[in-house]
């Protein structure tokens, strides 16, 4: 059995809330990530989807060690990233890189594109020779579809899509094994998102990259990922191969997300929202039992309000779901029924 490239075990990240006049004592915590586990095989792309407050961006930051976990482990090829220090950490950082969401604020406006992409080399002491560095950077620029002659231009001279390509080039510089893409296309126009997504797919194929793709947009994630993890208030509530997630979601939240996607077909009947009107919970005040129960149309006491469901296989599915009463029926999206018929 091949060892997984990345193994995340019970990772927890709590941000403490304090009160007190003289001495601050902890009265609670924002449970941003509350016990997340998954494995990523080499060459696989895993999607992480969820809405505001689900914790997916926190997971992204934990994976690249921008944050330290409160507990749990993150192992890259067996080595624990979350506790590494010094040289060991620096070495591990070269294997995991991140592409950020906002192409307008994630690039230093005072640096040229060339120096932005070259920075990883400089930090890690690679390509000491200036000319060699320049060549390496221009190669990267070509690889991501940018004109290498624009080496000396500044970010403001590029469009949003092009800036995102710069971000990708920077992430690729050190030839990482794993790239974490945190909503890489959400800030771009829909008609251009495909350009960056196709680029990532091509690079993935060429370079044998493994990818963690974070997004709130299920339709985008469907085209990029082999498996998808759905997050809600700090936990994974469903983790399944892409096709199975879309044709037979087992968790009510997944189904609600799927049916909330607006379909560009005016001949279909209007959708009814699947959730109860309750407000989205907050990670500072996680509901007891199943954390989704206040919004779940299938919530049944007493189990759902007191037992926290475990993420496990349900009725012979390939994927995992954390639900006491998982959905049994197949749910093809409304458009598919039309296309097939």
């Amino acid at each position: 059995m091949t060892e997984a490239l990345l193994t995340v075990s019970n990772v927890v990240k709590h941000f403490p809330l304090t009160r007190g006049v003289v001495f601050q004592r902890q009265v609670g915590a924002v449970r941003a990530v509350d016990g997340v586990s998954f494995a990523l095989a080499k060459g696989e792309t895993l999607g992480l989807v969820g809405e505001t407050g689900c914790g997916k961006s926190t997971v992204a930051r934990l994976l690249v060690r921008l944050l330290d976990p409160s507990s749990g482990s993150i192992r890259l090829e067996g080595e624990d990233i979350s506790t590494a220090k010094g040289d060991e950490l620096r070495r591990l950082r070269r294997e995991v890189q991140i592409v950020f969401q906002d192409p307008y604020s994630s690039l230093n406006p005072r640096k040229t594109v060339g120096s932005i992409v070259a920075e990883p080399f400089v930090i890690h002491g690679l390509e000491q020779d200036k000319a060699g560095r320049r060549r390496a950077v221009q190669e990267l620029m070509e690889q991501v579809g940018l004109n290498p002659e624009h080496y000396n231009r500044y970010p403001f001279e590029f469009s949003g899509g092009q800036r995102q390509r710069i971000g990708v080039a920077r992430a690729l510089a050190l030839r990482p094994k794993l790239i974490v893409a945190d909503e890489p296309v959400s800030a771009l126009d829909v008609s251009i998102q495909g350009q960056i997504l196709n680029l990532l797919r091509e690079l993935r194929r060429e370079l044998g990259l493994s990818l963690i793709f974070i997004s709130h947009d299920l339709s985008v994630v469907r085209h990029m990922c082999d498996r998808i993890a759905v997050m809600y208030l700090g936990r994974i509530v469903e983790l399944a191969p892409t096709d199975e997630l879309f044709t037979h979601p087992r968790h009510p939240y997944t189904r609600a997300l799927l049916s909330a996607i607006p379909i560009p077909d005016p001949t279909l009947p209007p959708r009814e929202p699947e959730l109860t009107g309750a407000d989205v919970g907050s990670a500072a005040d996680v509901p007891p039992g199943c954390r989704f129960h206040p919004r779940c149309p299938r919530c049944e006491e007493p189990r759902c309000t007191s037992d926290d469901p475990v993420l496990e296989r349900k009725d012979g599915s390939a994927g995992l779901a954390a639900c006491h009463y998982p959905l049994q029926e197949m749910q093809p999206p409304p458009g598919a029924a039309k296309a097939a018929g």
Partner: protein
Amino acid sequence: MLQYIARRLLWGVALLFIASAVIFVIFYALPAADPAELRAGRQANEAQIEEIRETLGLDEPIYEQYWIYTKNLVLHQDLGYSYEFDVPVRELIFDRLPPTIFLTLGAVVFWLLVGIPTGIISAIRRRSVMDRSMMVTTLALISAPVFWMGLVLLYLFAEDVGQVQVFPGIGSYIDAETLWQKAESLFLPWVVLSASFAAIYARYMRSGLIEAMEEDYIRTARAKGLSERRVVLRHGVRSAMTPLVTLLGIDVAILLAGNAILTESVFNIPGLGRLTFTAIERSDLPVIQGVVLIGAFFIIVFNLLVDIAYAYLDPRVRYR
């Protein structure tokens, strides 16, 4: 919110103690001159100096001295005795506080009345003649030295020596008896003191308002059909005002602590600033020490007031 205030108050008290300790170390442990000699005066002999040293407890170890000092301070509000005037420092300070307070408050009213509206109008009519001339004038007022301006105004308007004899001149505060006379005598000093502040506040209000008017909620306010006047004042200025409140608190604190020293000197107003100046000239350590401590007190108190005001003005800040 109450928790926050309580915490800040406790910290404030702690800070005052720390401040007094630092002041003490500076003045007693590392003096520029021998306090006993200074106290003794010009024609003292060795024996007298020794005697004084004993009386003042200067031969005690430093922590003893600090303990005595703090005890006096907290229990009796005793700040020591002025070397120069031979009166309790506390008396001196409380004597000099009212003119400084009067001077400061008047200046504040002046500079707010002048600076804020100027800033607002400049922001609304950007790049107009009014705006450009305002920018130039404020630059001049910020750059002009206070004493220069004071002397020029005296030259122009002082009752006794001015070209156009309108306002009371130098030293008139001391002679004034009624409140109204005092106010009259402070008119020119108010103008002088508030000039640079008015200029600064006008500029801050201008840039703050320009920025605030770019925000999305201004667009919403207009889309609701509100009058432009209301949009500017209730929505724009309301936002731009908050940093100015912070600034105001600090400026007032510093002025009360005696920072109007130049104005007081030029117009011969017997305030805290002048007292500090004289004390420094004469190496009157207890007075200097007392003034610095009072200054620290004002600054700590006003900082707290400013923070509370800020939390009141910006509801997003409240729950800490």
